[in-house]
């Protein structure tokens, strides 16, 4: 075996020894973050003061936890099923499901979605467009909805003032999408909710929000003595986990946006605050038109004022909305009636 390979094998062996040594160090401090009482009980059952870390990890489901070392004799366990983390993962799954199901016309026909992905989309529709599945007899499994993309552009003025402009994207495709959705309307309900229904909706929403915010911290061994330090380390770990999930969701969103043929790609959008002249020319032109169109909505006294604000802005900041569109009613060419509908933006991706 060449010398270099011997050296490499030796280094790997040393690294392994170090890991083994760390894993065999007595575990004095354990901090667990979870929202699941059964998980807390399980860790309580398995943990003994001074046990080697390797013994603890062997007895727990490794996939379930994020484990990070804390000092020389401590460890932080974060339950990967924390509602906060699950929600992020769930958003990513929705983006992946849409990416697989959306047609070139931006339309998602739920009946055509593979069974494995359908449930995730149906659950989202129930959440975004509530009360159609149950109270009005509308079956979300039969729904036809559309993907909607828009760009948020925040203009920063030198004096600290800022304005947010929304730029609808893929307008030609959105027109085709709306034409299809007009044949598959999801009507608004035409009656008041009963007292019971209002109560149920309130309870469900409160329960969902409260579950999302739930997270408890448990200390084992002597961890209680070092709680402030442990909380700081836990926060860092949690932030890292959230950030990784955000990155994965962003990657999934970029694939969806590329699939829809959006130009510029999400990957090409400038990150953070940039100067107006750093934006692609076509985007600048569209932004100018939109600012002038929306001058009244934005609180300017005229389109000229709005244009001036844009040109004088010290920086711009971009993010992208991904939403789902439903149509309430179709247009009527005989009477000139326009179509009507709504868009629920479920995800904002920052570049």
């Amino acid at each position, binding site marked *: 075996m060449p010398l270099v390979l011997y050296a490499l094998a030796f280094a790997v062996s040393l690294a392994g020894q170090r890991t083994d040594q760390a894993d065999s160090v007595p575990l004095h401090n354990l901090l667990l973050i979870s929202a699941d009482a059964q998980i807390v009980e399980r860790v309580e059952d398995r943990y003994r003061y001074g046990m080697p870390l390797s013994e603890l990890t062997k007895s727990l489901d490794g996939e379930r936890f994020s484990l990070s070392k804390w000092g020389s004799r401590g460890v932080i366990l974060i339950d990967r099923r924390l509602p906060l983390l699950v929600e992020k993962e769930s958003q990513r799954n929705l983006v992946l499901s849409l990416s697989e199901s959306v047609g070139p016309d931006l339309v998602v026909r739920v009946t055509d979605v593979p069974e494995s992905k359908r449930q995730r989309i149906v659950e989202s529709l129930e959440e975004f467009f509530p009360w159609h599945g149950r109270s009005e007899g509308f079956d979300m499994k039969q729904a036809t909805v559309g993907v909607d993309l828009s760009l948020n552009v925040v203009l920063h003025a030198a004096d600290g003032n800022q304005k947010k402009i929304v730029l609808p994207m893929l307008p030609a495709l959105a027109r085709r999408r*709306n034409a299809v959705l007009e044949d598959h309307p999801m009507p608004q309900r035409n009656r008041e909710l009963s007292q019971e229904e209002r109560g149920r909706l309130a309870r469900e*929403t409160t329960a*969902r929000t409260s579950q999302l915010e739930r997270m408890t911290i448990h200390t084992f061994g002597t961890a209680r003595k070092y709680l402030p330090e442990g909380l700081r380390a836990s926060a860092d770990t949690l932030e890292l986990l959230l950030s990784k999930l955000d990155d994965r969701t962003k990657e999934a969103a970029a694939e969806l946006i590329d699939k829809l043929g959006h130009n510029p790609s999400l990957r090409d959008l400038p990150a953070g605050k940039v100067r107006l002249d750093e934006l692609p020319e076509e985007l600048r032109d569209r932004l100018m038109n939109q600012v002038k169109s929306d001058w009244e909505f934005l609180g300017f006294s005229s389109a000229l004022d709005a244009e001036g604000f844009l040109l004088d802005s010290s920086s711009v900041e971009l993010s992208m909305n991904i939403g789902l*569109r439903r149509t309430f009613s179709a247009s009527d060419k005989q009477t000139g009636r326009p179509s009507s509908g*709504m*868009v629920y*933006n479920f995800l904002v991706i920052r570049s």
Partner: protein
Amino acid sequence: MISSAKILVLCPLFLGTLAMSGSAQTWTETAYAVTSPPQDHDEARTSFNANANQRYQWWVQEACHFIVSGSATPSPSWRLLFASLCNNSWWYFESFDFTPTSHGTVTNRVKFTTRTGINSFSGTNPTATASRDLDEKVVEDLYFVFDPHQEDPPGGGGN
């Protein structure tokens, strides 16, 4: 939607009626030419904050118009009547009903197309031509956007 097809139907009927009511002159529409590419708009209107569980009902309205003005030729006698008929504007109303399951912002939006063109006619007995400038705004979609609050909150407990 009021489209050029409707204009084509409306105007010759009216002109035909005029032709039968006295003058022997008859007119035929020869063209409706769009003079610049139609412009698509998707604009924001009013917005408001929405709280979870509360039922919101509101309506939005948007003006449409179909206007005829000017003439490239001396006016036939029916010009004023024709303009009066075709200078038209009206409002569209749409009502919405929404009970959000999270806090957020509702923004009303409207999609419409504007276009300008020339509506031209030829007359016989005696031979003559006339044309009108057309200005149209056609509303295609009234909708609202719900944005759940996803902005980064101020850090450190609101500092």
